[in-house]
């Protein structure tokens, strides 16, 4: 599973980096960033899904099977 943030949609609500700090960070303006290469280790897949489901802007894409 791989994570992506759609930069044009993210408004910096920060739900992702609160819920899954192992996967997301914030830049100097508070917008969400994907840590590392975005590949989600199996034990963090629930966190990844929870973050995506709580992003108010639907800005997080989870690509399964990668």
């Amino acid at each position, binding site marked *: 599973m791989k994570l992506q943030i759609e930069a044009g949609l993210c408004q910096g*609500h920060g739900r992702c*980096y609160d819920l899954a700090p192992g996967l997301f960070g914030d830049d100097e*303006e508070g917008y969400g960033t994907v840590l590392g290469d975005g590949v989600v280790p199996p034990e963090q897949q629930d966190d990844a899904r929870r973050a995506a489901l*709580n992003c108010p802007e639907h800005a997080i894409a989870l690509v399964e099977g990668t």
Partner: protein
Amino acid sequence: MTVDNRFAGHLWERRDGESPGIRSEIVTGPVADWATDFSHTEPEWAQDPFSIQDDLRQRCPIAHTGRFGGAWLATRYEDVAAIAYDTEHFSSRSVIMGNFRPPRELAPIGGSPPITSDPPFHRAARKLLLPAFTKAAVSKQEPAARALCHSLIDAFDGRDVVDAAAEYAQYIPIRVIADMLGFPAGDGAQFREFAKNTLEGINLPPEERVTRKSALFYYLFAQVHDHLENPRDDLTTFLINADLNGRKLDVSHVVGTMTLLLIAGIDTTWSAIGASLWHLAAFPRDRERLAAEPGLLPVAIEEFLRAYAPVTMARLVKQDLHFRGADMKADDWVLLSFPAANRDPAQFERPGEVVIDREVNRHAAFGLGIHHCLGARLARMELQVALEVWLQRIPSFSLADPPAVQWSAGQVRGPRALALRI
């Protein structure tokens, strides 16, 4: 010292009056039918806006009123989101609905950038402020907020009944924003008046509004001058020195943004803290669980924000427009009810219930799209600290007199009198 002549006295006099714009007749009094005559300033609305809006969402999801010179109210999540995203047809040049519409020429900047700004100006005005409100910047305010909460509770010593709205929740955002702007902490009572005048004074006669508005401008005027003489590391000095597209900000921009930061953070956060404490006092099971499981607080706070979203925002229709069955006219107001959106059954399971461990919670309490609350991080920190300290110090409490709880009317709703037995 060089004189910054942007702030010379005569430029300020213009701010004394309300600029030319459109005035409408002030209409108050009981509502005949909420679908055709709604008003968010009536006591019935303040008491229970949820059942009114749940009913409207089913029978008339975009309601109308002739009050305020003509206005619409969206209660479905889908419609609220669509309007929030559609900055082409809906302008933010005024976001507080009242009986005065600022002139169209005020767009795209508006009186208090960035909240009153439209694209393309909005982006740069917002970008300027973002670094001051990130997670890292906000965490610097946390120790002082925590110390304040403790000292407020220390002062309850020996009392059985306290007003959690007036004697606790209120002080927290006031102190935090005063520190960030570099205003004297002792001026807090005045800030509360300024916020109240702006948000709740919308049906006052125009002359009265102008007088009250001037008091705020004179206060900010004095603060700007104090900061010009004694620059320091705070948001006021930052705004005075900031560059936007290679130029210093216009004086109206500096003061408009100061006004916004002062007003936007106070009643809103006060309301959110108060509503959360009200819930915990009224629902002992949730209170007991959170006192025992403080780790659940961040999730519970999102649920309180969803269920008791304090803020509704307004837009002005740019040109005549047919929008999802509503015939909107240019300069009609549109209220974006984030509180109603947050209780839309099409978006949330069991929307009327407060589920403090709700896993999926895409609520819109902080708005959606480009104007998403710039202070959300700060508000969340204040909520976390306020509730955490309260539950630690006072794990057991209840409503002292449930019918006496007073909720504010208008676009920011929260308890203004909240007697708790502790």
